[in-house]
């Protein structure tokens, strides 16, 4: 059971970044369509909305606050996009990967932990009370979703007996992991929504605190931060494909097309579900995460381990 992927030259990183850009655009348009449908506007008008919004934010003069910690603020704002791009390096695009790393799964996990730092730094940097409250909200939520997420990530690794993403794909040649470890996939999805500050976990950017961690962001800072937020959501959706949906496996079409199709499907599903669920308060979700999701994750890992040892 060897690695099923081929490492490509670093130059392809540009293509990977372009793909992330495409996914971010798609996610923003899809989210905009759902939003305009709820208020009864034509969804077609949102197709070019991200272009206009990008142009507007690029032209907008950067606003600053009194005694802002500009260094940490900028690091946090740009860091989300960097984390998303770094996640993408270990996600195989069909047969090709940028970084065929022994511990690819842990790499992904380390990059989603970077989001902890980034959101808090954005909240801190603006020297604004609402933004700082948002930063603290996120950390409270992060403690609740991160440990269940780690247990969910372990399940495919146990089944494949490897932390290498290519090997995890190869181990699903018979049956996709989503079929026999559904709880791991559900908890993983919760984690992806969590580190993207999306849907029920968006309280760190909530309108009740004037936009929370992002409250004081303007101009290009705002553009990069929110593109990065869509970026980590897209990277999370893309990582579900090698982890639970057999990577690029599928009939007829080439592997990269299957990978893209599955990624888009997971991404749109996450956006749609995220909009349907009510907002979780961090303190409420803490108990859900630790009393329900962690035991569920451990039981899922136990079941997977028992299946693997009895094969």
């Amino acid at each position, binding site marked *: 059971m060897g690695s099923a992927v081929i490492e490509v030259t670093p130059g392809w990183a540009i293509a990977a970044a372009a793909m992330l850009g495409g996914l971010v655009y798609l996610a923003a348009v899809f989210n905009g369509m759902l939003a305009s449908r709820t208020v009864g506007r034509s969804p077609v008008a949102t197709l070019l909305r991200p272009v206009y919004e990008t142009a507007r934010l690029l032209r907008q003069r950067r606003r600053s606050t009194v005694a802002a910690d500009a260094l940490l603020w900028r690091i946090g704002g740009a860091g989300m996009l960097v984390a998303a791009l770094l996640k993408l390096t270990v996600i195989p695009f069909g047969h090709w990967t940028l970084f065929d790393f022994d511990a690819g799964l842990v790499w992904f996990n380390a990059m989603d932990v970077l989001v902890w*730092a980034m959101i808090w730094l954005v909240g801190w940097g603006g020297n604004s009370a609402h933004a700082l409250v948002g930063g603290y909200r996120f950390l409270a939520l992060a403690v609740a979703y*991160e440990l269940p997420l780690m247990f969910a990530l372990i399940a495919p690794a146990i089944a494949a007996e490897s932390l290498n993403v290519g090997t995890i794909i190869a181990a699903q040649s018979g049956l996709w992991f989503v079929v026999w470890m559904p709880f791991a996939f559900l908890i993983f999805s919760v984690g992806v929504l969590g580190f993207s500050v999306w849907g029920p976990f968006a309280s760190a950017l909530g309108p009740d605190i004037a936009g929370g961690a992002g409250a004081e962001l303007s101009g290009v800072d705002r553009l990069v931060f929110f593109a990065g937020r869509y970026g980590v959501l897209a990277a999370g959706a893309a990582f579900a494909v090698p982890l639970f949906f057999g990577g690029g496996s599928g009939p007829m079409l080439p592997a990269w097309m299957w990978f893209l199709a599955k990624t888009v499907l997971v991404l749109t599903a996450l956006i749609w579900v995220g909009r349907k669920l009510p907002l979780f308060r961090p303190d409420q979700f803490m108990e859900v995460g630790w009393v329900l999701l962690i035991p569920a994750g451990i039981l899922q890992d136990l079941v997977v381990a028992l299946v693997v040892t009895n094969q």
Partner: protein
Amino acid sequence: MTLIGDIVFWLFGAVAVLSGAAVFWVNSMARATYALAISFVAVGLQVLMLDQAYLGIIVILMMVMEMAVMAVYMIMFMGMNPALMPMSMVHDKRLSLSIAIVTFVLLAAGILLTAWPSGSPPPAEDVTVALGEALMGSKMLAMVVLSPVMVATIVAGVSLSLNRGRYDRYGEDLRRRNADDPQPGGVGR
């Protein structure tokens, strides 16, 4: 390692030391905490360059997570005005300096006096397993005893520091169905 690899490795070393020192230069708790995080990330990348894939990434993962949480506590407890304002990162300079110098001399002496393998023997087949054997192999009994003691200490520490225990939550006879908590929400409340 190649020449470029060597240079990058030493660069990470310099980053680790300088950002470690920056912890004391800067005047904000947030900057100090994240300077320490950068120092740890640089060390993690060095460990990664030594082909310890898992350990290197785990160092980065744990330390970023730890520093994110530490920033909360540092800002909460340090300083007169919960460290939201600029403040000096050094205090009790004479004692701290002497402790730092003694520790440095001890560690440096340890490096110089250790009998390192002579020449450059070929690295082991699986360096992670080799490192685990070298660190823990002969001390497995101590490690096995240590972990339950540590867990017991954590549980005892938490239960001693709780200001509301199960008798407050479920009543004197523990018969109350739903916990009586000052803060509602979560599971089954």
